């Protein structure tokens, strides 16, 4: 038994399914929910919302800023070339380089955080059904304990319009 899951036509029935799985003793992280659009009108759409992405973006910005500062400082000071009587290391022009690299750092850190925390597949979380694309909402349990599959099936079948499948 790899997975047991139900497909629901509406957010409300999916919400019921989630609630019943919880009542059957499952924690949020053991329930798999898939939808073709963000479901923020429903409680289940807010599971696992906490993220440090903002902080990682700031961190990336700081790294970028340091690279920008270091790059301009090290290269200009190690080979001072006089151009037009400007100071060898001048704040104003180099601030532009520092700014651009700060933003680049923040952007790249955001993307890396997204890919690592959101997109890289975790072990044992591969449940998928192409019908999700057509607007069905999938609620299911991956790698359930065999003895409890019956309970889960019952819980998933309860809401209106449910179609329960097993893999």
């Amino acid at each position, binding site marked *: 038994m790899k997975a047991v899951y139900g497909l629901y036509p509406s957010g409300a029935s999916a919400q019921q399914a989630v609630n019943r799985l919880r009542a059957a003793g499952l924690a949020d992280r053991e329930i798999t929910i898939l939808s073709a659009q963000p479901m923020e009108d429903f409680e289940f759409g807010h599971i696992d919302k906490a993220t440090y992405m903002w902080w990682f973006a700031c961190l990336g910005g700081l790294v970028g800023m340091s690279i920008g500062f270091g790059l301009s400082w090290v290269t200009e000071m190690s080979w001072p*070339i*006089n*151009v*037009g*009587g*400007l100071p060898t290391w001048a704040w104003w*022009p180099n601030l532009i380089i520092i700014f651009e690299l700060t933003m680049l750092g923040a952007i790249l850190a955001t993307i890396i955080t997204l890919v690592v925390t959101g997109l890289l597949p975790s072990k044992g979380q591969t449940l998928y059904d192409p019908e999700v694309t057509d607007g069905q909402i999938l609620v299911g349990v991956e790698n359930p304990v065999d003895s409890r599959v019956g309970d889960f099936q019952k819980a998933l079948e309860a809401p209106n319009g449910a179609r329960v499948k097993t893999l």
Partner: protein
Amino acid sequence: MARWGMAADLDRCNGCGGCVVACHAENNISTVGPEQASRGRAKHWIRVERYWEGDFPDVKLKFRPTMCQQCGNAPCEPVCPTYASHHTEDGLNAQVYNRCIGTRYCANACPYNARFFDFFNPSWEKPLQLQLNPDVSLREVGVMEKCTFCVQRIRGTQTTAKTEGREIRDGEIQPACVQACSTRALVFGDLEDRESEVSRLSRSPRGSKLLEDVGTRPAVTYLARLTEEA
């Protein structure tokens, strides 16, 4: 450390253009032919600008030999992305051809239009290719070039003086234009040395810099022409 400069006495200049020819010969500046020249591709590191004043028949003709002014605060330098245009310690505004990628930004920034772009690879009509100066590199297509104050002569004389264990004498270094000037309108030398002729002329009350208000601190001083009214 010297600071090289030039003085151009407009009272002496008769606009003969000898400096232009000498410069072309000394610095391996390729000629482009009349057709390209009419399209603005001629490269005259030094040019004799002609200005007419007054209405016919009371016309006065003025000449101004114009070359790179070797600015102290050169607008062409900071805009170069590859340091092809930069300042040497002796105040020369250097152009490193090998670093140039041809953005032409320096030429736009130059208020004197003293910089020239190589639109084509250089070529000479036979037998002119036999008289190329071995001390000056040829410039390939796509780079900027300009007056160097004949830096090859400066460095050559510096080396000679060093091996002979002496200072450089005033007037010992002569860029090609100075050497060729039959009226001795152009004088070259060290501006730091207050005794040198160029230094003396630069302090003359007749002296002024070209486009001084742009703030470029040029190393070339023009001595005004004395007219009857003045």
